[in-house]
């Protein structure tokens, strides 16, 4: 069976990863001189507490080559084929590092690495789709084909509390045009093909949620949906209910922006990720 590897910027809930046998290589999060493995040494709840309370601005970095090698070597004990799908190379060097590690497994093993050009559950949904096919016993070729088709159709739409974190981390791009408002607004940002896009501003949080639903609804042939939040569980519940009404009968994943992503979004964010058909 083809085994699937991703990084912790995919925000895949632990139980889903376990069920679908997805290996997650943790990104690193740094608060000053303290370095943590995302989700391993620093659980998400604790991360948000620190993010809000700490004076130091956290940063993230990609897993080291050794981390990927260890993950690949471990799986190579069981399989001869690994598909490693990662956070957009426009945001992180995780993809490049994985590529470098891919040719060096101790045991003979074919490792294919894909740059998803997306992040958070945008990436998560792509990885989940791949893992499901792997469990069905599909071939590496077939799964790669699926991923290459699906990844460009992944969309992430997020309502922010502030864009300061995104700016500080240097990932803001064109969305900078939404900054600097002297009245309170909730900026809505999209992630599409590895690029951050400004989508608009809403004055009230509830209208922002409606806007997220509209954006999800506009994506044609939705095959996967996830609601994500960071320190905003109530709003995520509201968004979930609204989406469940729009997409009856569809499974909607609930997830939390992990520290690798949340370093750039900041707290009090809520978003929807969709995988177009």
């Amino acid at each position, binding site marked *: 069976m083809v085994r699937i590897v991703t990084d912790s910027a995919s925000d895949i809930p632990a139980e889903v990863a376990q069920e679908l046998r997805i290996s997650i290589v943790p990104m690193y999060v740094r608060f000053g001189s303290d370095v943590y493995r995302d989700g391993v040494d620093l659980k998400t709840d604790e991360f948000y507490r620190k993010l809000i309370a700490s004076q130091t601005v956290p940063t993230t970095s990609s897993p080291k080559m050794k981390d990927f090698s260890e993950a690949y070597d471990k799986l190579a004990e069981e399989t001869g084929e690994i598909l490693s799908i990662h956070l957009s190379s426009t945001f992180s060097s995780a993809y490049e590092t994985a590529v470098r590690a891919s040719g060096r497994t101790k045991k003979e093993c074919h490792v294919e690495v894909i740059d998803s050009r997306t992040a958070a559950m945008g990436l998560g949904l792509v990885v989940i789709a791949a893992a499901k096919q792997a469990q069905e016993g599909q071939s590496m070729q077939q799964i790669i084909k699926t991923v290459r088709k699906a990844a460009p159709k992944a969309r992430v739409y997020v309502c922010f509390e502030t864009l300061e974190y995104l700016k500080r981390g240097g990932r803001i791009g064109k969305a900078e*045009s939404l900054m*600097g*408002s002297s*009245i*309170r607004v909730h900026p809505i940002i999209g992630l599409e093909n590895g690029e951050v896009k400004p989508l*608009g501003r*809403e004055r009230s949080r*509830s*209208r922002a949620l409606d806007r997220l639903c509209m954006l999800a609804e506009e994506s044609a042939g939705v095959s996967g949906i996830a609601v994500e939040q960071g320190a905003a569980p109530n709003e995520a519940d509201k968004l979930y209910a609204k989406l469940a009404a729009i997409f009856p009968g569809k499974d909607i994943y609930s997830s939390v922006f992990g520290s690798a992503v949340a370093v750039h979004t900041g707290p009090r964010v809520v978003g929807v990720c969709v995988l177009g058909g």
Partner: protein
Amino acid sequence: MQEPQGENGSGTAAYSGQDLREMFTAGTAWLEKSVPDINALNVFPVPDGDCGTNMLLTMRSTLEEAYRAPDSNAGAVAQAMARGALMGARGNSGVILSQIFRGLAQGLEGHDSFSGKDFATAFARGSTVAYKALTRPVEGTILTVARDASSAGRDASSKGDDLVPIMEATVAAARESVAKTPTLLPTLKQAGVVDAGGQGLYVLFEGALQHLKGETEAMQNGRPQVVPSVIPLVAKFPQLMTEKEEPFGYCTEFVLQGHKKLAPDKIKKSLTNDGQCLIVVGDEDLVHIHIHTFDPGKVLRHATTLGILHEIKIQNMDDQHKEYTEMVKAQAPPAEIATVAIVSGDGLGQVFRSLGVSAIVPGGQTMNPSTREMLQAVEAVPQDKVIILTNNANVIPAAKQVKGLTSKKVRVVPTETVPQGVAALLAFNYDADLKTNAAAMNDAVSSVKTVEVTRAVRPAKIGNIKIVRRQAIGFVDGELKAVGDKPAQVLLEALQSAGTEKSEIVTVYYGKTTKRSEAEALVEEIRQKYPNLEVELVYGGQPHYDYIASVE
């Protein structure tokens, strides 16, 4: 402030060194409030990345020395300030500011105390010294503002020796001069801003004046305003920025403390060929050097032969420029559509600008802009598709005339109130075309209810409501809903009939003559009455209207 010492018979006061300290302490506190606004005015390639911050830090150092001066001898305090300014000067504007203080100190030398006339003369000296410090003085900068302001102060001092009217004339002239800076300096005009250094100097003196007049409440609650330009301000349009090809080098700045007596003029001469924007200022003991050079090492090596270096700052301007152009590019709206809004009130203007409006035409309730003024703004923006937000029912007819007078494609989104204008502007979509945008912006208008509170200009009876002249009257979407003596109470009452309990967010813009403390108390009351509501208080600065509120 303390009572000025030594009143003489003609009612003219003599001011001590302590008064001088306090004036500029107040000015600096006022300047501090304006730092973010001033920083935002920055125009590259002037490498004053943070002009406001630089001026503030220069002033802090100036004051530190001022308070170190052992007594209240005016001349000695001024001397100490000049030294502090020189030591702490940062950036172009900071260095020029330090020279103004240097001239001021020269002018007050030997004075135990000073009169208004003495101050005016000394400030004029400051302006002259600042001009001399630069090899090639540029007009439309802090220099121009210093000259205009000091010359107005001198004129006023010929009419009387009292410092307050002299400072009033000085500050008024500074303001006027700042407003004109974009007409003198093309880079300012292109960027659509007034000069940051000039603005800083104006705010500094305005703060000093408020202190002299004892306007402590205004200083505590108010905020310095950015002077509006005399020519229409067009928001930054980065596409017009050409990539500068030749490199900038390093902005190199330090203070030199001489082993022996220093000769600033000689140092200046020896560095002239080492770079650009050379400023060498100071005296025999201490010299501040600022230069844009490709070889900072050479400059520093030369300087170390003359003395000890302090406060060394070297910045790579090419990196700064690259960051700046990248930031501007990232900000660049891909859309070819400009937005023009009719707004009165400096605070509201700031709100519209912060939301990305391309140009603002001043006007509103009692001052409807003419078709010509709106046409000028439409012509001034570089885009050939323009959306006009009227923000007032009376402006709509004149705005509609603009369409027929220009070859540009113009759509009027007939917003009747400021909150409608804000809602419409938020609905603007960079990716969409003119028609779609106009439609979306029109739709957004219905998402907001407007409450306005003003005063009755004459007695009236509308429906069953009787109104006495000067009474506060409250409207909900143009319909009279509340009358009372206190504007705040009228707003509360009007909010009730605007369906506020079912809303999520109320934004209260308070007017030019409304006290912030009153507005804060009002907002507190709204919060208590509607605990689930998000309430935001914003300075609008609009005339005639005590309050404008949006209910969404």
